[in-house]
């Protein structure tokens, strides 16, 4: 399969030609930069998206943890998260492919808003499928999509959340595949989506790798990123995968496209004679309230797919899943809607299986503390997703080494209400007293 035992194309036959077409376009435009596709992508991400994002030394966190903590500031990307890296790449690719219409699913609304703004920017008609329950919970994101000119299609089936929206988007795609591109929002789905999304997101790690060498004169000892579907994770990790003491990964074929895919990355790497610096890659999953699955209820009170999941096929790929013994997918849970997914990118599953990536979990409470700590100490309100990566700093120290890069995948303005509600329920060590000033 695409990544060791993981990946593949488990989709209805009707979609296979579209995946072949997409794979062809991926090879031509992304890998070979045909018609200057990647140049245009990078120019637009610079001018429209705000790249490069800074790598910021977090002074107060560094002091707290007595090591150098650097933050990769994806929260500063247009739209407030790394999501645009992928959405803009795919919408642009769809345009190069001659597609006339963009569809996407969204759960909490982050991928939907990123896709809607990319589609507006590139003048492509766009429809977003969103569960009715999510629509009611995330009204501001619905308005943002509408203001960007996207149609928002409510999905009323089932619980009206992400998984129904995905199913409905797949159905639209299966019907309109010839003229429509489905912008998948993470490094999931059938080949070539996991590679395509990874390559669009890998700008995160490419920038961070150059920035940390510039700032610290060396590679980091570890890179920490939260993992739901895994797009910010793979985006942060991809360029660092070969930075491994194990020579197997130093020439990992999954990274082979890099230098051709991205001429900016065609700088000489470390001198061949010197021992290769080793960078640990830590994927922080949502531990939710517990790591146990409730088989009877079909619920996992976590989204710790890499840490606790088992192999299976979901949404087009063989990967690790949260599932019951008989194969039914369970409902995952996390305080962070963006991590709340029962699957994970197949390449991450592969990198975990082969030992290159270390999966860890941070529970809801520790993530909330991570949120408050960054807000209070550094003046950056992180997304609840990113707060998991930040929460891990508190739980783990020495194994991270002296120089740590943490990916702040998005900003937390969208999470204020959730954080308030969840903070009130708990006695959080890092939370300020949030009076409501009722008046």
């Amino acid at each position: 399969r695409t990544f060791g035992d993981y990946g593949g194309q488990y989709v209805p036959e009707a979609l296979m030609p579209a995946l072949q077409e997409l794979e062809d376009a991926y090879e031509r435009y992304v890998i070979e930069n045909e018609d200057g596709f990647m140049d245009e992508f990078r120019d637009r991400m610079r001018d429209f998206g705000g790249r490069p994002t800074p790598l910021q030394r977090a002074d107060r966190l560094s002091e707290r943890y007595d090591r150098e903590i650097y933050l990769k500031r994806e929260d500063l990307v247009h739209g407030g998260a790394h999501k645009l890296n992928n959405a803009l790449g795919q919408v642009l690719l769809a345009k190069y492919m001659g597609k006339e219409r963009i569809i996407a699913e969204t759960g909490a609304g982050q991928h939907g808003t990123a896709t809607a703004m990319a589609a507006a920017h590139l003048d492509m008609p766009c429809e977003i499928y969103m569960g009715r329950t999510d629509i009611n919970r995330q009204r501001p994101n619905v308005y943002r999509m509408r203001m960007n000119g996207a149609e928002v299609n409510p999905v009323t089936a089932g619980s009206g959340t992400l998984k129904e929206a995905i199913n409905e988007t797949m159905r639209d795609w299966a019907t309109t595949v010839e003229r429509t591109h489905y912008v998948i929002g993470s490094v999931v789905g059938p080949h070539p989506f996991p590679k395509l999304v990874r390559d669009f997101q890998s700008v995160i790690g490419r920038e961070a790798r150059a920035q940390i060498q510039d700032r610290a004169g060396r590679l980091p000892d570890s890179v920490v990123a939260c993992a739901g579907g895994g797009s910010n994770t793979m985006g942060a990790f991809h360029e660092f995968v070969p930075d491994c003491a194990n020579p197997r990964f130093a020439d990992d074929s999954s990274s082979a496209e890099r230098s051709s895919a991205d001429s900016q990355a065609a700088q000489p790497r470390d001198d061949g004679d010197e021992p290769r610096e080793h960078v640990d890659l830590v994927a922080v999953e949502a531990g939710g309230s517990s790591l146990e699955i409730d088989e009877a209820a079909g619920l996992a009170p976590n989204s710790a797919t890499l840490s606790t999941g088992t192999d299976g096929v979901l949404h087009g790929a063989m990967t690790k899943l949260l599932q019951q013994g008989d194969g039914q997918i369970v409902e995952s849970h996390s305080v962070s809607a963006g991590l709340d997914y029962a699957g994970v990118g197949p390449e991450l599953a592969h990198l975990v299986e082969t030992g290159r990536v270390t999966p860890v979990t941070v529970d809801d409470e520790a993530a909330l503390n991570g949120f408050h700590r960054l807000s209070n100490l550094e003046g950056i309100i992180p997304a609840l997703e990113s707060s998991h990566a930040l929460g891990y700093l508190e739980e783990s120290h020495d194994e991270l080494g002296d120089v740590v890069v943490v990916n702040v995948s998005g900003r937390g303005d969208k999470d204020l209400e959730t954080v308030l509600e969840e903070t009130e329920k708990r006695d959080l060590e890092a939370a300020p007293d949030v009076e409501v000033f009722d008046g």
Partner: protein
Amino acid sequence: MSGEDRRPKGEEPRNGERGAKRPASVEPAYDSDVEAAIRENYPALIAYVTAGDPSLADTKAYVEALDRGGADLIELGLPFSEPIAEGPTIQAAINRALEAGTTPQGFFELVDDLETEAPLLVMTYYNMILQYGPEADVRPFVERAAEAGLSGIIVPDLPAEEADPLRDACDEHGLDLVFIVAPTTEGDRLDRIMSQVSGFAYVQARLGTTGARANVSTATHDSLARLSAYDVPKAVGFGVSEGDHAAEIIEAGADGVIVGSALVDIIAEHGADGDAAAALEAKAAELKRGARRGATGEDAPEPEQP
């Protein structure tokens, strides 16, 4: 993957391994009893219901009614929580079946119990097949399917490119693995799939998902024209709901029609009042008559039910 037919016509390695309850064809004229059921009952009617909707006991009655009504092959859906290829009708049926607690174990016990004229196939998603057994491996499922007397497997999210492990297991246990041919399946892929047909080619009538429609799409005619050169049984599904559809499809060159959502609609409507079995039997008869009309070239519309 090579393009060659992996099961040359000359060999008949699997007939003897068939489940005991289904009547073996009198002569081993065809590779499989699935193919036989279509060829010998031309024009064939293939019926789908979701196992466990609204309960496994009901499903037993429904399958028997369809068998009586004239279905030549019956697809039994084993429900999966993420049915990405289904339209709203079958998705709802699957949700009802899951809420009723339908499990693979229960499904196979139902199949163990069933005695029908028509061979049975299981239609389910790949993960359900993978997870049957202690680890992710397709073989325990296939072994159990064969033991229960199923004749074949249809997996809507398993394209030919990913099918090797399951086909190997099916070959080993003498089950057909039915591939779907979509309106978008063309050129090399079409050749490759058609050269590997097992049982029959499931011709998807139109782009999109399953679901009853009011008419037969032009894509159906285009697909059948495209497939006419291949000497394999072709059954057309997705959107077939009336006898007249069946007639039109058979007339256009199909060997059979596949009806699912129209039957599930009947179950959803009559599930509570207990009349579903009779209605299903009548619907099967209507569809079979329609198919026959198409085969004989008669244009007469379906007569009103007495």
